């Protein structure tokens, strides 16, 4: 599975991802309508975005089936035409990654732009990555091994 990973220590809160997301999805510049949001914590910044839970509470609580798993990408996504605006998915999301679009009166969440997330391309600081999970894990595994090797040698 290819997923969006966040390196919060590299985020400078420029918010290019928010602007890119709202532009790509809605044709306007509007952080409140972005699927990815930056939380600024006094010198440390954290991008918050849907993590595509395997057991997704938003899918479970959606009464119309508007929130569903698109296995082609794969990603959890929302069919806006089917959304009745009950906000159950927003309440159920443990990460604050599903939000409400005031202009369209529907819930919004990241759909990874169908497999080519625009926010990742917009991030010049390396705070967002979109890579196969296997690659990320392999890299981390290697870093762990190298750290152990360095300790042993040292």
């Amino acid at each position, binding site marked *: 599975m290819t997923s969006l990973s966040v390196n919060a220590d590299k985020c*400078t*809160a*420029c*918010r*290019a991802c928010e*602007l*890119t997301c*709202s*532009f790509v999805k*809605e*044709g*306007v*510049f*509007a*952080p*409140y*309508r972005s699927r990815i949001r930056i939380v600024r914590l*006094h*010198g*440390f*910044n954290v991008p918050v975005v849907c993590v595509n839970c395997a057991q997704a509470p938003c899918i479970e609580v959606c009464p119309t089936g508007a929130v569903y798993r698109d296995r082609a990408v794969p990603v959890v996504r929302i069919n*806006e*035409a089917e959304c009745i605006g009950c906000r159950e998915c927003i309440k159920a999301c443990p990460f604050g990654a599903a939000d409400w679009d*005031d*202009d*369209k*009166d*529907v819930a919004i969440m990241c759909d990874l732009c169908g497999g080519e997330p625009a926010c990742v391309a*917009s991030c*010049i*600081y390396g705070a967002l990555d979109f890579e196969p999970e296997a690659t990320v894990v392999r890299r981390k595994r290697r870093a762990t091994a190298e750290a152990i090797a360095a300790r042993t040698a040292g």
Partner: protein
Amino acid sequence: MKESDAMNIRDIAAQRILNVDLDTGQVNTEDVSRRDLVRLLGGRGLAAKFLYERIPAGTDPLGPENVLIWSPGTLSGTSAPSSGRTSVTCKGPATGLYLKVSVGGHLGAELKYAGYDYLVISGRAPHPVYLWVDDDRVEIRPAQHLWGKGTRETDDLIKAELDDDEIQTGIIGPAGENKVLFSCIMVSRYNSASRGGVGAVMGSKNLKAVAVRGRGALRVARPKPYFDLAARMRRELAADAGSESLYNWGTSGSIPGLDEMGMLAAYNFSQVTIDNSERLSGQYLVDEGYLTGRESCFACSTACHRYVKSHSDRWGDVDDSGPELETMMSLGAECGLTDTEAVLRANHLCNDYGLDTISAGHVISWAMECYERGVISPEQAEGLELGFGNAEAQLELIRRIAFREGLLGDLLAEGTQRASAEVGGDSWKWAIQAKGLEQSAVDTRAAKSYALAFAVNPRGPDHLMTETYAEFGFTEEAREVIRKITGDEKYANATLLEKRADIVRWHEDCYAATEALGFCVFTSTAAFAVNPENMAELFGHALGIEFSEEELMLGGRRIVTLERCFNAREGARREDDMLPWRMMNEPVPDGPNKGMITDQAMLDRFLDEYYALHGWDPATGIPQVETLKALDLADVCRVLPEA
């Protein structure tokens, strides 16, 4: 889904003013004409027009008649790289002249999303208040409980009582409340809108803070071309060598270079070097582990802003933003200090009390020189050992100034021009000020375009109304700019006298346009990836018009000219286009530039050339009527009668 077009999507071209009258509590909105937006580019440019129109000559800067104008750039809130800056404009209390300060952070974009391009505050509230702009709901709220508190605690309290930690704020500290003539406004908690006492104007209005939340959206006229060009500019800017250095080391990364060039202002500009200067550098902050984070302003692709932490038994703990190069110079080297932790602490105190670090440092370095020369007696120093290098005295003075405590604190709170008039003797000669503003730490004896730019700067001698960094010719991009202006890159040499007026005027136009659109000036006058050509193209895409580089630069020229007219109407003349006495009379004492000076004769030559280029009267420096007509400004400002 809603069928109708959403109410809170706003076209960039449809600019709106939010007027707030604190005398009456009245609030209303006004539309901006498209003609004005196109000819003055919005932002800083339109703010200059509003200031000119709304306050008559002779207005008391600290009276209720003065206005305080917040204006994010025309492109702020969009994906244009580093375009989130805001101008704050008023009549300045330190100089009695035009004052614009520029600030980053996230407040400007938030104001745009709330539905406003300009926030114009007039009058004086009967008691302390703060302004709460929540989209189209505007409220003037009591602030007695916030009065007297530091900027950080105030930020916490406002966010708590409005129950939203994503609100953007602009806040004054005790220094602004006490009308210190170099008090600032802290924006988005960590960014400083500084210089000229803009905080005192807010304090004089009994306005503790502005708090904004905006949930609206901005739309450009040609979305795809706009977005694609902005994305390209973002990548180019990130790849620029200047941006890379600013990201790695911040603005104070240039301290080793300045030292090498013999341009490191130290000991109140009496020296050009100081032992251990590397301890003030951005490299040192990284190497010694003080740096904890790099931060962007809204939409910025440079991230030069710093976060630092230090723990010091002697000076206390610091967990704060900055310090910038100028802060390191003014609170550090100029005061004879290279103790990193002491300077971090001084920076922190200035941020929390709401003081402009450049003037605070230079006011204190002036007092230190007075003390060493015996012009300020130990008795007048009220128990402080004021000599250069005493961090303890400096930290205590910062507090006394902010609260105007004691005779000395109250005196220094007036800035060096007034303080030297009070103290007397020759102390005016080492008051490093002109027009009433303390000079920023640039050695104008050796850099000649800077000298002219500082002298004609409408708010006083500093690098924040224009920057002529390209004249050093450090990079290929810089030399290309000089070639473009003068026709020959041999003029990329800061010590030459030829072509300085051409270089200054071009940079002023570019700088004014840059700020009107909301770009950070680092992108177009320190790095060069944002330039008049792509700015004009982006402006055209935003408004849906054809717009050339020449038209953009002409817009910048109009802004510079309008600001000049404001000062001329206040009575400013050629003799006010001046540099501090020391910078014109005491040559560089040593180093590679030893013996260099920009004296009156040299400045006169520059001014003659500069006024002629502009079409300003050579004797007075006032823009000629024909010049205003040619610029399509005759209906906006006129100081001289029709010939």
